[in-house]
């Protein structure tokens, strides 16, 4: 339904964070300046290292933590003035938080019961959602009698059954093993596609974020570093943190020689001058920069690929990883560079200690101010 990037420009401002700050101790800000615009029906992932404040942001949305300053608007209304239990926000907890003294059916019925829905409606909704998560036969069991994946599905259904305006998921798959996690990712996407709810999904697993999300907000140091669709995030990172955090990257230190429009000429430690796309670096000569180039965008001369720049490096190691090869190079100043090649006939045959030239295009290399 939603192709990546659909939500980039045409946001309908369904959920808005405006300069949200949070401090637990009135001294340090855990969330410094949080701005985000989410569309209705969007699957947005908050991705950041552990301790970056992701849970804190969810807790503020759910109303379990107060907002120190700033505003959270849901459908143009500030939700900070609404009590948590009146916000109509579904939440999936990492530890499932199913009520152990209630059966699965009772767990699912609970949000409808507190909303005083008629009995018949509750029963039909519970049956519908049990079918949706393929646990029809488990309505009378207690959570303790289910496996981890089954519990996670019940938690998901319980957070969706009352038709919430927004669903928050805090690392919901963190406790599952890899295989089950991948199954559940598909399960969540299937339900999202079918029911069209708006999701704020929290994870520190970038693979999970990249496969599931319409957009990802990379969160670090209390601010959103970049919010974009997975492909944009990977191919056009807007600062060095994002370039480093998403996927694998090589970083070459250097200084600016000259800039023209969006291209910067940068002198690296070998003395060579390379051309890179200018992102957030300075423009005066001698400004320190770091150039990010992905391992699969670097080629060893001779090559058929087009290129704009070359650097001279020495091979220190070669790693055989089955379907591809990893070459480890070193610059004279000790900077390490990894190059990734498919393990086919084109893979160059070079020996440790050989000096070779690595080449790349300006549009595949990005100049950032150093982290």
């Amino acid at each position: 339904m939603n192709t990546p990037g659909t939500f980039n420009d045409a946001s309908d401002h369904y959920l808005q964070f405006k300069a949200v700050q949070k401090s637990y101790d009135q001294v340090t800000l855990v969330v410094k300046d949080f701005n985000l615009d989410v569309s209705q029906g969007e699957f947005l992932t908050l991705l950041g290292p552990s301790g970056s404040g992701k849970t804190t942001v969810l807790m503020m949305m759910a109303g379990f933590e107060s907002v120190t300053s700033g505003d959270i608007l849901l459908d143009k209304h500030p939700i900070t003035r609404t009590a948590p239990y009146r916000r109509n926000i579904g939440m999936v907890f990492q530890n499932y938080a199913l009520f152990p003294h209630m059966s699965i059916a009772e767990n699912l019925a609970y949000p409808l019961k507190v909303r005083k829905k008629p009995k018949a409606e509750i029963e039909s909704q519970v049956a519908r959602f049990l079918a949706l998560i393929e646990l029809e036969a488990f309505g009378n069991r207690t959570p303790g009698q289910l496996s981890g994946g089954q519990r996670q599905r019940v938690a998901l259904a319980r957070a969706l059954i009352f038709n919430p305006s927004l669903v928050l998921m805090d690392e919901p798959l963190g406790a599952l093993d890899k295989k089950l996690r991948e199954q559940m990712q598909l399960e969540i996407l299937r339900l999202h596609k079918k029911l069209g709810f708006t999701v704020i999904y929290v994870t520190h697993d970038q693979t999970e974020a990249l496969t599931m999300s319409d957009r990802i907000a990379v969160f670090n140091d209390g601010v959103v570093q970049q919010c974009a669709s997975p492909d944009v995030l990977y191919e056009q990172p807007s600062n060095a943190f994002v370039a480093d955090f998403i996927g694998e990257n090589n970083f070459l230190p250097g200084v600016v020689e000259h800039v023209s429009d969006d291209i910067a000429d940068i002198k690296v430690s070998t003395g060579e001058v390379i051309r890179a796309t200018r992102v957030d670096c300075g423009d005066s000569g001698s400004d320190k920069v770091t150039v990010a180039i992905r391992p699969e965008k670097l080629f060893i001369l001779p090559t058929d690929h087009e290129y704009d720049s070359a650097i001279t490096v020495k091979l220190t190691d070669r790693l055989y990883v089955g379907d591809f090869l990893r070459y480890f190079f070193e610059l004279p100043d000790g900077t390490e560079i990894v190059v990734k090649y498919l393990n086919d006939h084109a893979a160059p045959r070079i020996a440790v200690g050989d000096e070779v030239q690595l080449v790349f295009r300006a549009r595949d290399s990005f100049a950032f101010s150093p982290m």
Partner: protein
Amino acid sequence: MARASYPAYYTFWHILGEYALKLSAWLVLFFLILPILVIIPLSFNAEPFFSFTQGMLQLDPEAYSLRWYQGIVENDNWLLAIKNSFFIGIFATLIATTLGTLAAIGLSSDDMPFKRAIMALLLSPMIVPLIIIAAGMFFFYTKFSLAGSYLGLIIAHAALGVPFVIITVTATLSNFNRSLYYAGLSLGASPIRTFFDVVVPLIRPGVISGAMFAFVTSFDEVVVVLFLAGPGQRTIPRQMFSGLREQINPTILAVATLLILVSVLFLLALELLRRRSEKMRGLDDTTR
């Protein structure tokens, strides 16, 4: 044969030590239990003595009787004492359980200031010598005309029972997963509704065992009663105390036997609860 079960490196002294340990354990058990057990047959004594008669030792049915049990039922003092004990015990338990549970919940919150100080204060009735508490209560309650009244005794016993409730409920709460409370709120239940639908059922075993401790505390408390109770508020322990001094006959042994029976029932109930809560906890673990 028996030696075979000892580790091969055991010397004579190891084995001697092992026997000494077993012997002392049995002795401790013997001295703890015997005085209690010996009361039971003596309470069926047909004679007004506190010792075994010749007939009892020869298991002569004639030497046994239920006359002391009958004595309880026919004696208004005893009936009043039994009634008072249950009346005071039940109300003190209700108050102690409600207040103790609420206190435990408040004290388990992260935002609670002066947690340790408040906890120490609430637990102090368990630690401070009872005679000091009783004397203090006597002077304090007299000022409010609470001495010599049921209300005074109920409040006093509730204060003595609160620490037990706080301890058992706090222990249960430490196993309580806070996100269950948040889950209740996120599903649309008000904090009060969440409390009754989610928190109470899960901490119920702790609340009930705390209540039982509180009840037993009130039921066998005598020091505070000696200070605070008027003639109308004699309880079972108080009546036994005066029974020992005034009318020396085995009626108090019959009462004691009944009390032992009640205690055993309570212990059994606690054990059942413990098993249930363990099952519940196992369940909770899997939801973590």
